[in-house]
């Protein structure tokens, strides 16, 4: 997957502003890439351009070396605010993306059950979002994204709406799912403003600048997994990224 010289302009009161400028990025299959940058730098916009939800103003998105047209069906998104439908049960929320793709009811049922088990939601089938903690809501968001069996999972600040302890657990579980051979997802691109989260999870951290957004640096994270914040190189990487952002 490749972003080539991507730009994105926004128009307000007849004035065009360049929000993202000349961003190029390559993501290999099997990689976990974290994109970090200051608030409002367009990280989430970049993720939507990657998925084909928003067209770039300039540049090209290539998927498997072919220019991408429209929304990429091999990608699914996990949202910061969970994006659950409150009037649907957990099971129906997980099935949502699948139903739109039109498989048989039996296939939907089988797939939904499989991913609910995988993310630990078995037992919550008939619960409604209002009955769930934030952590459980995000598990539903994760199961819904996984149920369409994407090859690439895009995560937009997935832990930002959770308390610190719940975030620790969910990060751990996302990494377990990424390494699970039964999961079709091989590649993850995550946007976050939390430097520590990026280093804890990703193989590579892409640091973005303030607007107009550019890639400041790409930093490989070679620390052994599971990662520990007390590793001497953790703080060094953290400081390096912080100095690039601030």
């Amino acid at each position: 997957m490749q972003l080539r010289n991507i730009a994105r302009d926004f128009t307000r009161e007849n004035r065009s502003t360049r929000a993202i400028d000349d961003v190029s990025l390559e993501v290999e299959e099997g990689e976990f890439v974290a994109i970090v940058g200051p608030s409002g730098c367009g990280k989430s916009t970049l993720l939507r351009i990657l998925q084909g939800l928003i067209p770039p103003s300039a540049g090209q998105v290539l998927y498997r070396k072919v220019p991408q047209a429209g929304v990429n069906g091999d990608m699914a998104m996990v949202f910061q605010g969970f994006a659950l439908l409150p009037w649907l049960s957990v099971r129906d929320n997980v099935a949502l993306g699948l139903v739109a793709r039109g498989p048989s009811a039996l296939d939907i049922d089988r797939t939904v059950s499989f991913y609910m088990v995988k993310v630990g939601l078995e037992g919550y089938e008939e619960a409604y979002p209002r009955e769930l903690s934030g952590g459980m809501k995000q598990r539903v968001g994760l199961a819904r994204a996984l149920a369409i069996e994407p090859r690439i999972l895009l995560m937009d600040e997935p832990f930002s709406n959770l308390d610190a302890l719940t975030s620790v657990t969910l990060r751990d579980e996302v990494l377990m799912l990424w390494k699970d051979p039964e999961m079709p997802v091989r590649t993850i691109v995550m946007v976050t403003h939390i430097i520590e989260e990026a280093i804890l999870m990703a193989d590579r951290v892409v640091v973005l600048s303030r607007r107009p957004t550019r890639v400041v640096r790409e930093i490989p994270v070679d620390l052994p997994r599971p990662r520990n914040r007390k590793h001497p190189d953790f703080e060094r990487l953290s400081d390096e990224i912080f100095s690039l952002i601030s």
Partner: protein
Amino acid sequence: MEGEPEPYTGISRIIGLLKILQEKGGSSDLYQLGIDLHLELGEELQIVRSAESLGFVDTPESDISLTPMGEEILRKDINGRKALIRERLLTIPIFIRAMEWLGKAAEESLSEETVKSLIGEQFPNEDVDSAFAMLVNWGRYAELLGYSAAREELYIDRGS
């Protein structure tokens, strides 16, 4: 912030606490842990007591340390964690009693109102609403209990 405040401690927060303790080498000073996690004392104690009730931590004096079972749950995958929590819940008095009440009921199901009055009668020191919320949430996580909001009924989860 989603997920808080809640009248019970979510399982994800308990496992998060265990992970943090593991990073600290398996133990910590309780006061320092609260500072590190930016938790108010009451909130910290609620989480710690919940973890202790499940047998995952010990709290000798003013310290907190992982038990062997606390270390074990961190080595397990997502569903292995659920299975271990299920085992642990079956050792906690309120879960033992709830399973008995439901086991004797028609279709292994009781109304929320009935369960709350039984909690009030048999666990007079518990806050009834918090205890019920814990039964529903921990019970669902462990696939031990189910709850239908539409029918306002708690039931034994036999799978489907």
